[in-house]
């Protein structure tokens, strides 16, 4: 492999049609617009087709990669490590309830609703629907600011209606990143991605449905039942257990294999792993020995 101006040249490998083509090694993340922050995908691209993908998470004490890459980025400076000791924002009410703190059902629904709206904002932005992304983000901000159920429902229902009814969106995202329930369960996925049992469009529908349901119940003041198993925005939350987002990271490489670049972005956005969850659990494990 030659060097040009200190940069390695693209090497060659067989592509899926048996042609020998240039391949580029391109890291995506940890920061990129509308990308789960902290996630690094090491892609091997031929043209804009993903040949191989390896998952890493930056700034976490333990490598979470699977497949080829097991090593974490070694050069992560301790000072730049995100404050993983802080509990992951989107899971907060559920974690508090698990610790025995009284959390109202409304507050939990509000956080869940906002978390899905946040994911939907990224998803719509990645599929190139800026308007709907802006609407979803506005609704998320209002939800977190403590708006009433009536106002929140009025904000989210046009978003839900437009996204559900859009035949273009269905045509564009159907068949992208199909994750069967069986496959999902095998990798320990527990959240909306398991419920969806299908492609990126199905996962979006699950989010939309949960947003609609959550928005109607943000004013409920009864306490969250701590004995029941908590299910956060990414899936099951249990203290000390493998975080739900780990399962999402584990399924990524096989879903990305052979995907076109734009599809790869849609797949990542439709799973939307929350790397705070992983950092949190890793830290907790190190502390408890």
């Amino acid at each position, binding site marked *: 492999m030659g060097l040009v*101006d200190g940069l390695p040249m693209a090497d060659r490998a067989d592509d899926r049609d048996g042609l020998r083509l240039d391949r580029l090694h*391109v890291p995506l993340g940890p920061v990129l617009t509308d990308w789960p922050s902290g996630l690094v995908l090491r892609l091997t691209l031929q043209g804009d087709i993903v040949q191989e993908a390896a998952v890493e998470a930056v700034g976490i004490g333990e490598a979470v990669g699977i497949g080829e890459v097991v090593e974490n980025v070694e050069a992560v400076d301790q000072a730049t490590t995100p404050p993983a000791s802080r509990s992951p924002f989107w899971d907060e009410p559920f974690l508090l309830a698990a610790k025995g703190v009284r959390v109202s059902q409304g507050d939990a629904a509000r956080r869940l609703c906002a978390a899905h709206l946040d994911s939907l904002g990224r998803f719509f932005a990645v*599929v*190139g629907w800026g308007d709907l992304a802006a609407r979803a983000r*506005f609704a998320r901000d209002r939800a977190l600011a403590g708006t009433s159920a009536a106002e929140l429902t009025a904000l989210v229902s046009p978003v839900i209606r437009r996204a559900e009814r859009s035949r273009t969106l269905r045509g564009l995202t159907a068949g992208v990143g199909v994750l069967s329930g069986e496959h999902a369960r095998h990798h320990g996925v527990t959240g909306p991605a398991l419920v969806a049992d299908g492609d990126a469009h199905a996962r979006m529908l699950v989010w939309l449905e949960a947003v609609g349901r959550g928005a109607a119940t943000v004013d409920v003041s009864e306490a969250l039942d701590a004995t029941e198993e908590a299910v956060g925005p990414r899936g099951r939350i249990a203290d000390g257990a493998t975080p739900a987002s780990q399962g999402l990271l584990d399924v990524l490489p096989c879903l990305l294999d052979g995907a*076109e670049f734009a599809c790869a*972005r849609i797949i990542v956005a439709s799973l939307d792993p929350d790397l705070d969850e992983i950092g949190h659990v890793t830290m907790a494990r190190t502390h408890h020995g």
Partner: protein
Amino acid sequence: MAERAPLWAVFVLPAVLVVVAVAVAGLDAVLAAGARTGRIGSLRAAAVHAVRPGREVLRHLVQQPRRTRASDLPLARIGAALLPVAAVLAAVVLPLGFRSVSDLPEGIVWFNAMEALAWAAVWLAGWGPNSALSLIGGYRFLAQGLAYELPHMLAITTAALGAESLRVGEVVDAQAGLWFAVWMPAAFGIYLLSAMAMAFWGPFDQPVGVDVAGGAAAELSGVDRVLFLGGRWLLLVVAAAFSVPLFLGGGHGPLLPGWAWTVLKTAAVLAVLVWARRRVPTLRMERYVELAWVVLTPLAVVQALFVAVVVLNR
């Protein structure tokens, strides 16, 4: 037939195009800002948003340009500069009312040839910076070209067929009675789609998409960026404006003078496009190409056949 415009029109044309492009970009910025709440807001806020594209241009012009390593700067520069040049050259055959800068005998072919220069421009701008994401943007435009160009050519050929001439002035004259959009609706619809596709704008913005961090434009900065993204708006304006002489009767219309009708119709087409883009997500070419080849191309052929039969029996 269209009259020849005076020589000074050559210098006025680019200025007029830039003014229209800035106005359209301003309108788009206002709508984009209003998308968040679903309301445009006060007139004052709208004015602030409307001048945003202008402010962006100034910001890019004073900004320190950045370069990527081992980039092919001349190539990227040629690509960026080619886009506005192609747009202005294509506009040479655009009649304002019944006068165009040059009413070439093969005006329609000229327009299509200049528009195809954008293929080279986007590819060069994408290849030049030696960056994977902008390279992907470049690839995408070639795929897009393959998808939209076939139905597009058939659509503009249909208009030429209806007028039995490739001269834009004669196409306008042929619509003194009935607009082509009325009896060639499929060709008109396909043309509007390809107008957006050739300017890689709106639902066809994949070559400079958000998911590739700006694609072909990702690494362009300073004047290059202004030329490239500005050229894209110019191309959109020219492509939309060309639908007026082709399908909407050019300067024909009651009461008002010809130039006023051209301006009104062009504004209406642009407004429709700017509105429509907010309603749909970005079309990925791997999916769109199926629609383009399986549905739009046969549709365009049937449309051309229909027009040919009508013309033969006239």
